[in-house]
């Protein structure tokens, strides 16, 4: 399948770009001396410059042939403001812009495809703004780089809202650009009014870090640099900029415009005295443990946590907001260890209270402490550095014994060093005994996991353990990434597959907003495409029906992605909730909980849906024996650089 750019003339270096690069080169010569690297102004255009063609020269004339000066001024725009906006975006280093097209940003849309040659950033076509935003979410988690979802400031941003909330809750940065027409005397009647707002970012302001509505191109330039900085500073999160239609479409003007340099903020690190106290508590503890959630930004985070855990031989409970710790390391343990700990180090937990306590779903909700009553809790993370009021994703308040504001990954080296300094010989010598204990526990737990995976092995619908085991057969000899959450699949991915790389598991949606799976998987697959890593998406059926169009985007842009559905023919979580309500009320327990929750009669042919969008597909597969051969065929498609999809009818969990 061809991408947008295949059939179009190469406009990557037109006259305008040639001139701007030449101008920039001159300007760089003039201003180059005396700048520090962090504050250095960016040159406008990099790369080789080719001379313009005769036709391009003619197009760039002040007054095109056959027009008067007044006519030329009336009919044409020589240097549109959105070209400069694109220069800014390029300098920030944005690889892709995800969008569903809209007139409020037609100016910058044109600049991306013509002035920028649709390269760095390349425009990716989504069929819904929620998908465009979730793609940016998945892309960041696989690459560590933010993308730009480009949306209508009103209806487009309204569509994107839930995906923005997911990103906010998952601490994922992105820079949302929202088209808007601010000047009322400048709007066409009709849609330009309906698609404009006095304060278009307001609908998402409760769950973004920052926003602005620039009134000039220079204002835009500086706000974009600020937007990048704020989004990428822990706690990371989405930001938004409204881009005025007139600013995009009008002349850039003669005024000199600057693009400020990026000045990344170093992540906050825990205060030395508090770190020393945390180290003392950990070293003196009989049973210290580490619980970790949204900590590792990259592989370095994993390595640092291994260092700390090994230094005191403390078990690590990964809540899998990120891939934080190798799951085959002997210190990787289940949450049961929390009950035995006397000191609990919480690293970037979003929910410390819910880690230390439980509240079961019963008629009378009573909290019960899961940890020992005398257990001390150390909380290290950035969650207290930025919090908003309305949406309650920050979870219940917990009074930790020692709270340290600091980025978990950035704080780990000083904590590990402090721990090593605080360790006496006797404590150090106990490590081998601790190591043996956790090795035994880890082995016992893994054997138990394998034993559990045997049950329903040959069942139809296919067991979720069998599903992950079959997928492993085609993944095990490659570099791979599980780009989807496995929690509602009984966690078989993180329990069975050996995971040690940061990209081996990308975690959850953040807020549980349904419709995240497919587009986030496509975004992650895009990031992994050039690294030769196989992206694996185990896709829930209910989630998929919110955003199936993401598979068209994968086909259209040649993004290889292996998708296998965990198709349990309904909204199973809600099925269980309704059954629970029925049982409590002692009525309708023999079947009514399917009403409103099942996706049957007719059963949805998911394979046919994606086939209709140009994606190779197979299924529905009911017999587990048919899954392996289908996966082998799917891998042939993947190896040709295309997405492949298998619909697999599965057990509920």
């Amino acid at each position, binding site marked *: 399948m061809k991408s947008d750019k295949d059939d179009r003339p190469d406009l990557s270096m037109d006259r305008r770009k040639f001139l701007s690069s030449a101008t920039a080169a001159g300007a760089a010569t003039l201003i180059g001396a005396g700048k520090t690297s962090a504050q250095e102004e960016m040159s406008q255009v990099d790369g080789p410059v080719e001379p313009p063609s005769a036709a391009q020269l003619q197009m760039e004339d002040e007054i095109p042939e056959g027009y008067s000066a007044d006519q030329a001024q009336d009919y044409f725009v020589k240097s549109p403001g959105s070209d400069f906006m694109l220069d800014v975006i390029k300098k920030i280093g944005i690889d892709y812009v995800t969008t569903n097209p809209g007139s409020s940003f037609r100016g910058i849309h044109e600049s991306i495809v013509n002035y920028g040659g649709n390269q760095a950033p390349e425009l990716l076509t989504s069929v819904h703004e929620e998908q465009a935003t979730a793609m940016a979410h998945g892309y960041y988690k696989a690459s560590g780089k933010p993308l730009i979802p480009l949306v209508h400031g009103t209806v487009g941003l309204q569509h994107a809202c839930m995906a923005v909330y997911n990103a906010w809750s998952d601490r994922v940065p992105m820079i949302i650009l929202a088209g808007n027409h601010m000047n009322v005397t400048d709007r066409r009647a009709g849609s330009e009014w309906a698609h404009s707002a006095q304060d278009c970012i307001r609908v998402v302001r409760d769950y973004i870090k920052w926003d602005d509505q620039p009134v000039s191109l220079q204002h835009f330039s500086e706000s974009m640099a600020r937007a990048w900085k704020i989004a990428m500073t822990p706690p990371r999160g989405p930001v938004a900029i409204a881009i005025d239609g007139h600013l995009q479409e009008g002349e850039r003007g003669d005024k000199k415009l600057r693009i400020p340099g990026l000045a990344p903020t170093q992540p906050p690190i825990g205060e030395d005295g508090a770190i020393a106290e945390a180290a003392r508590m950990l070293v003196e503890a009989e049973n210290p443990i580490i619980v970790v959630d949204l900590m590792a930004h990259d592989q370095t985070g994993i390595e640092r946590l291994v260092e700390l855990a090994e230094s005191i031989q403390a078990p690590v409970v990964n809540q899998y907001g990120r891939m934080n710790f190798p799951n085959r390391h002997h210190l990787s343990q289940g949450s049961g260890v929390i009950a035995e700990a006397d000191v609990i180090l919480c690293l970037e937990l979003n929910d410390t209270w819910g880690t230390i306590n439980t509240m079961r779903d019963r008629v009378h909700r009573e909290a019960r402490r899961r940890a020992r009553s005398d257990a001390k809790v150390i909380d290290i993370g950035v969650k207290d550095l930025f919090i908003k009021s309305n949406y309650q994703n920050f979870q219940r308040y917990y009074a930790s014994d020692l709270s340290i504001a600091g980025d978990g990954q950035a704080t780990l080296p000083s904590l590990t060093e402090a721990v090593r300094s605080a360790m006496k010989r006797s404590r150090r010598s106990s490590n081998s005994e601790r190591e043996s204990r956790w090795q035994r526990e880890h082995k016992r737990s893994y054997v138990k996991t*394998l034993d559990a995976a045997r049950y329903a*092995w040959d069942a139809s619908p296919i067991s979720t353990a069998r599903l992950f085991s079959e997928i492993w057969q085609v993944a095990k000899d490659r570099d791979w990434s599980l780009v989807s959450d496995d929690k509602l699949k009984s966690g078989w991915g993180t329990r069975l597959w050996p995971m040690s790389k940061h990209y081996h598991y990308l975690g959850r949606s953040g807020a549980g907003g349904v419709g995240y799976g497919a587009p986030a998987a496509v975004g992650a697959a895009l990031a992994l495409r050039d690294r030769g890593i196989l992206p694996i998406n185990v896709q829930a059926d209910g989630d998929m029906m919110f955003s199936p169009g993401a598979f068209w985007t994968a086909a259209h842009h040649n993004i290889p992605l292996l998708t296998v559905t965990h198709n349990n023919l309904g909204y199973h979580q809600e099925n269980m909730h309704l059954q629970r309500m029925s049982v409590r009320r002692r009525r309708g327990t023999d079947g009514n909980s399917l009403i409103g929750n099942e996706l049957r009669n007719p059963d949805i042919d998911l394979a046919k849906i994606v086939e209709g969008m140009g994606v190779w597909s197979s299924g529905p597969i009911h017999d587990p024996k048919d899954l392996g051969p289908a996966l082998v065929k799917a891998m042939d498609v993947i190896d040709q650089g295309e997405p492949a999809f298998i619909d697999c009818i599965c057990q509920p969990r």
Partner: protein
Amino acid sequence: MTQVRKCLFFTLLGLALLFPHVAFAQESESDVSSGKALYDSFQCWQCHGYEGQGGRSGPRIAQTAYPYSVFAIFVRYTNLMPAYSPDVLSDAQLRDIYEFVRSIPAPPALEEISKLDFE
């Protein structure tokens, strides 16, 4: 024995003494096929899977080692799962379900499943 298991053991022991009519009820004839139908219609599979294999939502109950009396206490009185009272699930129905889950065939041995090798 972990704290959780200890707690569970004493809870069950206490409940057995509190509800002797369930814990020590006379066993009656039961029907595996009826139990399968009831397992499906009462949607035990929602948490325990169609084959009783269990998962993150509920424990494995296939081939349960518990005697019926303890099984019944779990279903009716522990609050570890939604409590199915006798007026929505009779003792006879529960016993049939119990016989069904006990009758679920054993899975293949680990050594017989080559695909359960992730090294």
